[in-house]
């Protein structure tokens, strides 16, 4: 309470900084990690920047989608499966097609999977079954569908689409501007939209206190469907990015499952409370990249790769405990 009072007396810009201190913190962490990584490897140049940005894209997209859903008070375990679905449909139908058709398929996938996941949100509203149960069920449906569409790895896409997400028609070693912009623009747009627009703020209100939001005259059901639709669109984008990076489709269940888990990890690290209503989407862009970067960093440090996963887990737990501790301290002070 005192904090809030103190904040109102300070300069608005400083207030905004204070409110987004976690976001700033994770971007700082990413900056520090990048700086550290440059000292660990012999050469740090465009190749490395491109590599990190493009390889982070699928997770960043998925994390943005998950963030919006979590902010609205839900959680979506099917995002990874939707990524698979988008990935295999793109790989199967884009192969050998001219760029116009590829673009049309890409847009259709984003819209189609957004609608598909909006349907999931609608079912959650209608049935009253917890989000985690419904999305767990749909995750199996979408994964099965993905295997049915593309039974084994294969397919392809147009060089132009590979360039869009990776900066190079062959998927490697290109300019870092396309992947960097493809990462920052959706991140900033979704973050700004959620923080400033009327439907965006409705998401926060719904996630923060559903009953209060409803009593205030907000359409909380529509908010949830909207959140799931955005999550679906981001998962579709993640699937497209993955096709662009590898040039093939990969229907394996494990790909989707680990993507889902990583998206939740990025959201939690990004300072978005799993209880809903709290956090800034732009933070998960940084934590998504951080999670991807941990692997090469640990290997560059000479950590045995079998131990790298343990350390990765310990780091996540550590950062979370710092976050929890600071929240407790803040509460005690007020």
């Amino acid at each position, binding site marked *: 309470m005192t904090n809030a009072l103190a904040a109102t007396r300070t300069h608005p810009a400083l207030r905004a900084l204070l409110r987004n201190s976690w976001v700033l913190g994770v971007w700082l962490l990413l*900056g*520090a990690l990048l700086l550290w990584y440059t000292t660990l490897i012999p050469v740090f*140049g465009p190749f490395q920047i491109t590599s990190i940005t493009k*390889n982070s894209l699928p997770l960043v997209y998925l994390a943005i989608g998950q963030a919006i859903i979590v902010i609205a008070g839900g959680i979506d375990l099917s995002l990874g499966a939707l990524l698979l679905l988008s990935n295999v449909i793109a790989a199967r139908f884009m192969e050998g097609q001219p760029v116009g058709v590829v673009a049309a398929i890409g847009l259709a996938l984003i819209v189609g999977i957004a609608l598909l996941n909006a349907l999931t949100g609608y079912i959650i509203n209608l049935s009253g079954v917890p989000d985690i149960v419904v999305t767990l069920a749909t995750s199996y449906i979408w994964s099965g569908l993905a295997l049915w569409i593309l039974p084994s790895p294969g397919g392809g896409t147009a060089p132009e689409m590979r360039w869009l997400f990776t900066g190079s028609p062959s998927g490697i*070693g290109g300019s870092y501007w396309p992947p960097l912009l493809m990462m920052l623009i959706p991140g900033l747009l979704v973050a700004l939209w959620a923080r400033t627009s009327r439907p965006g703020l409705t998401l926060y209100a719904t996630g923060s206190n559903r009953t209060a939001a409803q009593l205030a005259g907000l359409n909380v059901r529509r908010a949830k469907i909207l959140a799931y639709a955005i999550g679906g669109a981001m998962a579709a984008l993640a699937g497209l990015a993955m096709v662009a990076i*590898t040039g093939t489709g990969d229907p394996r269940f494990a790909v989707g499952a680990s993507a889902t888990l990583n998206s939740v990890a990025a959201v939690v690290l990004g300072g978005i409370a799993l209880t809903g209503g709290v956090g800034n989407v732009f933070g998960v862009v940084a934590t998504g990249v951080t999670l991807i970067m941990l692997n090469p960093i640990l290997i560059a440090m000479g950590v045995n*790769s079998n131990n790298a996963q343990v350390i990765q887990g310990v780091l996540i737990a550590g950062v979370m405990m710092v976050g929890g501790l600071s929240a407790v301290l803040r509460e005690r002070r007020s």
Partner: protein
Amino acid sequence: MKHRSRVHVVGMLLLVLALLVAGCAAPVSAPAAPAGGAADAAATEAPAKEGGFTIGVSNTLVGNGWREQMICAIKAQATASGLVDRVIVVNRNGGPTEQIADLEGLISQGVDAIILNPTDREGLNAVIEAAIAQGIVVVAVDQAVTAEGAYVVTNDQVAYARIGAEWLFETLGGKGKVVEMRGIDGVPADTDRHNGFMEALANYPDIEIVAQTFTGWDPSTGAQQALDLITTTEVDGIWTSGIDYPVVEQFQAANVPFVPIVGADNNGFVKQLLELADEGLVGAAVTNPPAIGAVGLAIALDALTGKNPERVTMLTPELFDTSNVEGLQALYAPDEQVGWSTYVNIPPYTSYSGSADVSACKAPGE
């Protein structure tokens, strides 16, 4: 109190901003110049080097005994060669997406050569070709890649099945009821092996395949299938795609007389072939060595030291049957697990001394 804490917060934020700017500025100011120069340097420097190499290894299946042994064979051979300073192993579960990131990480590490067990035949070509363009030697082991300029070392899976099946059909006198215990449907190695099996079968018209199973290369699944078969069907011989010792155990458990059986060079099976020969076990172990990793390393070092090795190397499997007691005894590794692949010395490529060195799994400096 309140005031001071606010000052602290402002101070912290300034620090954060400063670091953030530093962190962002570094990559932007660094690039352009070194990249091209580094590639040139690597290209001109590589042939001149005669030792002290850094080797990168990329594997994407963790917790699999065969793959772990493959990595250990690379490490053991790196130590034995005396030419390697450091082996960087990137080992995690994943598909092409993860492996591309891992390979880019290894390129960034400035390795001299990369040995990979590829997840995809074509999907990795762009990154492999980028590595080669920087003067890095790339060797794909176990499975092939189509990238131009990459070295490929594989076990001949068609021959693996054909050699074993021919031995079995010959042992049965060209006549009898045979079971084919395959691996996982749709996996390239399984398809190749099935083709080899059918090639052999074509020459033996009186051999009848009474059952075909997919073990999933899982010992317990294979054991259950074998038990069901030998207790319900008349079987004269069994060919397995490597799930061998569990099958022999089922004969013992069910107290059914042994029939001729073909398996791989698994330690447990080799032991059975040696110890149960007196009780009438006739069998043959066909090699499918994970030490192919060490072969890949030897080829990488040859390429780095300017010896121009062959682009494609295919290892032909060896067959050790119960009549070859000396051969089996040389393979048997009493200190290792049942699933240990015993055929670790592959002349002329490997120079470590047998299973003990591979099992120690020590890279230079470890």
